[in-house]
């Protein structure tokens, strides 16, 4: 148990160090551009499958399962968003290409995905 807690602490320590390192090497201007760019690209990617699922709500017998798929899709969106965010950030700041962005990318994606999961559970339990 202690070993596991130690691992988690070490992981988050590494994560926060990497985030600080990236923050130090990036400017607000390009962070904003990366955020907007990543939002645009990820929304364009997710738009078609999301619309297809929304269209399928016409199958009223399956609305619950379609809603679950929609929540999973929105959770998946966070991974796509952070992937493109760091991709664009590396384009704007070649100096961070050497930094391991996989850890902040996946950690932040997981946080946002968990947030959407909780939100999805709350909304689904209210609606159904």
């Amino acid at each position: 148990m202690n070993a596991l807690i130690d691992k988690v602490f070490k992981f988050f320590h590494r994560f926060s160090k990497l985030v600080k390192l990236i923050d130090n090497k990036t400017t607000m201007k390009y962070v904003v551009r990366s955020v907007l760019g990543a939002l645009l690209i990820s929304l364009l990617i997710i738009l078609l499958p999301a619309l297809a699922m929304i269209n399928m709500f016409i199958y009223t017998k399956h609305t619950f399962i379609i809603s679950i798929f929609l929540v999973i899709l929105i959770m998946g969106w966070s991974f796509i968003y952070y992937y493109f965010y760091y991709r664009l950030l590396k384009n704007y700041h070649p100096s961070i290409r050497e930094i391991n962005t996989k850890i902040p990318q996946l950690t932040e994606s997981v946080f946002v995905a968990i947030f959407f999961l909780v939100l999805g559970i709350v909304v689904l339990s209210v609606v159904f």
Partner: protein
Amino acid sequence: MLQFIKQYRKLLIILIFPYIYLLFVLVAPTEQAVIAPGGLTEVSEVITIEGYDMVDNFNTIFVYSYYPITPFQSWVLATDRTMDIYPMTDRQKDMSKKDEYLQGQLSKYVSFKTAIIKAYELASLEKPEIIINYHYEGLYVYYRPNRLTELEIGDQIISINGNNYSDYTHNEFIVLANVDNASFLIKRSVGDTFEYLTVNYEKGIDEPSMFFYPNNVIDTASPAFEFPGLDSIVGGPSGGLLQTLSIYVSLVKLNIGDLKITGTGTMDMNGQVGRIGGITQKMYTAIYNNADIFFIPESHFSEIPNLDYPYELVRIETVEQAVQWLNERFN
């Protein structure tokens, strides 16, 4: 960002056309509508009667109606025989979503009132202590062309070209209303008060005709009743028959065991059971919900699809026939 786009320029150019095409297929409206199976609503949840336990056997059926559907939905649903795709009617094309909702709520309210009146009248034949008094008070506007912004769905028409409702029966008054030119005196409910206004109507070329519902006002009723179902978003008139039967059975305390009874059909003040939309979808909904008995308007019987339904199908033309069938079966 531009650098990123340049990096994948070829791929983006290749993908942009199918992307736009798919987007179009998923969002563009067609001129088609669809009726899909829905669910059951227990009548005991929407109508309550003071001093009586409403039986929980009777269920009205609601179906979903969507329009306009997208090309994607049209393709997917074309292979599904539980759905009915049809070209949108002129009235549907002319109506907003708000109009559609208001129509559903209005027709539900009229259906509830008609069900109460008919059920009380039928039950009073067996239990004279059951009393209902009502009077006719003109028409409700159910459909009006969208261009007539001064007229709202749910407005009450109390006079047509100077002819007051009090001098006519409903059948006579509706003949006066179904003309190409008319001046309507409108009574509109605004909060706790009413406002009166005159609206001149002239039917446009190729325009759908206006559509009305009777406004019967219940003066006194014993036992008293309430309509908690008015708060629900489910609307429409097709539950009239089942609502009437449920109230009647509850008032005369007919024991029908634990059978799940459902069905469809509108009710008018003469007890005639009228036609409804989406009979196939309603039959499928009853199958999905394990109904035991299904009341169907006689006029729909020849239209029922070729499907294995596990329930007993009862064909009726009037509410009196349905009541007689229940009494013969369960008394």
